[in-house]
């Protein structure tokens, strides 16, 4: 089958959606398909520019493809008679972020008109696609809420599951992923000062801004935690991250209301590591069940410290929970084989 994968891009910025698109192409090719990845530049600032971006996409043409798999706005507006939407993002600024008052679209007459045009373009696109799959229940809920549309749930698999293996169960809790205020690594550092055990914490990943990284460094210094909290702030190759995960005792991930299961928690489970999270972490709670596959704490340092101590002191229980987590994760069938079969069905 000849397949085009449609994604948009902000040049020189690479995030989860770009990783997903690359791996989707690779996996489709491994399943015997001929695949091209299209990367459409998207400039959303100033917001009025979105009109021409949408129009440009509507004017582009794809021919001689049996199937198009589209991931994001506005690339998914490019017409094709056999298009499947594997929806990573609509333009949220025109939907839930508008309602929340956090949109870049101004609350002016022009802004309202732009918002309406985006919604209309989406509606027109969605009614002409073969199927719509959302990567998370949150995405599905938005489609239902703003467009009245039902969709299938098709979660994103791990990109390189073979790299996340059950290693040696070391003496540290690992916290990976981007470092910023919404991922709340700072809460873990604050929790560490309240622990009574000798548990250790490793935080590694790129900071979204220098301030985000500096905050963690300051906290570690302020609380005298340098001997138990190791910070490795920066971009690390996946092999290095995989090694940290695979050889940890368990992992921790505390995002605010994450849409999806979260790569950090999926990678942990793949490596048979239980996950510590908090009760407002959104999609993570579909993966972490308290005292079964991990721990769900309240999002405050004292409660987190209690869990960190328990993870360290009841080591056998922590390891057993990690093995449960792996079993539970694998039973969900979220892998590329199933994903490709559903997308090309």
């Amino acid at each position: 089958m000849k397949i085009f994968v449609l994604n948009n891009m902000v040049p020189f910025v690479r995030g989860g959606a770009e990783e997903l698109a690359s791996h989707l192409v690779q996996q489709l090719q491994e399943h015997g398909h001929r695949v091209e990845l299209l990367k459409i530049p998207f400039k959303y600032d100033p917001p009025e520019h979105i009109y021409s971006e949408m129009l440009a996409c509507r004017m582009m043409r794809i021919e001689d493809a049996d199937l198009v798999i589209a991931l994001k706005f506005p690339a998914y507006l490019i017409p094709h008679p056999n298009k499947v939407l594997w929806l990573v993002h609509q333009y949220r600024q025109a939907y839930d972020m508008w309602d929340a008052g956090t949109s870049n679209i101004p609350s002016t007459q022009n802004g309202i008109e732009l918002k309406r045009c985006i919604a209309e373009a989406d509606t027109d696109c969605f009614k002409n696609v073969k199927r719509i799959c959302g990567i998370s229940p949150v995405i599905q809920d938005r489609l239902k809420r703003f467009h009245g549309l039902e969709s299938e749930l098709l979660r994103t698999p791990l990109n390189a599951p073979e790299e996340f293996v059950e290693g040696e169960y070391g003496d540290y809790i690992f916290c990976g992923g981007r470092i910023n205020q919404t991922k709340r690594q700072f809460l873990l550092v604050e929790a560490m000062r309240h622990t009574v055990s000798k548990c250790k914490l490793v935080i590694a990943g790129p900071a979204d801004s220098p301030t985000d990284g500096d905050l963690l460094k300051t906290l570690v210094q302020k609380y005298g935690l340098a001997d138990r909290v190791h910070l490795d702030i920066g971009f690390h190759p996946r092999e290095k991250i995989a090694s940290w995960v695979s050889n940890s005792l368990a992992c921790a991930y505390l995002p605010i209301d994450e849409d999806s299961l979260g790569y950090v928690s999926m990678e942990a489970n793949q490596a048979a590591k239980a996950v510590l999270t908090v009760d407002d972490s959104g999609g993570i709670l579909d993966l972490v069940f308290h005292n079964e596959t991990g721990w769900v704490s309240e999002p405050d340092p004292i409660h987190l410290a209690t869990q960190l101590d328990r993870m360290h002191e009841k080591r056998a229980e922590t390891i057993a929970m990690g093995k449960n987590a792996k079993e539970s994760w694998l039973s969900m069938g979220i892998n590329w084989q199933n994903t490709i079969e559903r997308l090309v069905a």
Partner: protein
Amino acid sequence: MKILLATSTKQFHHREIEIETLRDQLQALGALTDILVLPFSMNKQHLLSQLSSYRMLDVRHVGDCLVSMSAPTHILRHPNKVVVFSDSSTQLVDTWDEQDGYLDRQPMHAIRKLLYRAEQVGIQEAALGVCFSNLTARRMQTMVRCVVTDSVHLAAQLAGKHLKSSRLSGKKVA
């Protein structure tokens, strides 16, 4: 230096130049690169609207340099653009008059003229033109009356020079 490479995909045909090879060379020379890939259909009905859509995309503020690797991407707008001439341009130049040329002669004459003009505009905006054979160099000189480099080591040029100092049209560029 941030260099954005742009190419179009024409229904699973091999691209004329291995864009990935150029990217790797640039990266080895210390440049930060990214690749933009746009769809392009050879269906005559949609040629003009597609060219317009390319023109509407805004990459003017992206990176230090844009390298357009094949004919339709030459019309992308960027203040520091390098156009790479490849065989795709031949359909607008010498194979036009051949019996097996891609575009019919009479019915499409006006469109060809516009395509030709669009290509000229894109090229004349560029700071540098590059091709990989003397044959293509001669062909492109016929088309745009400019001198282009031949057989250059494009990656080394891009990584080693500031390109903003010249415009392509009518000038000889190194």
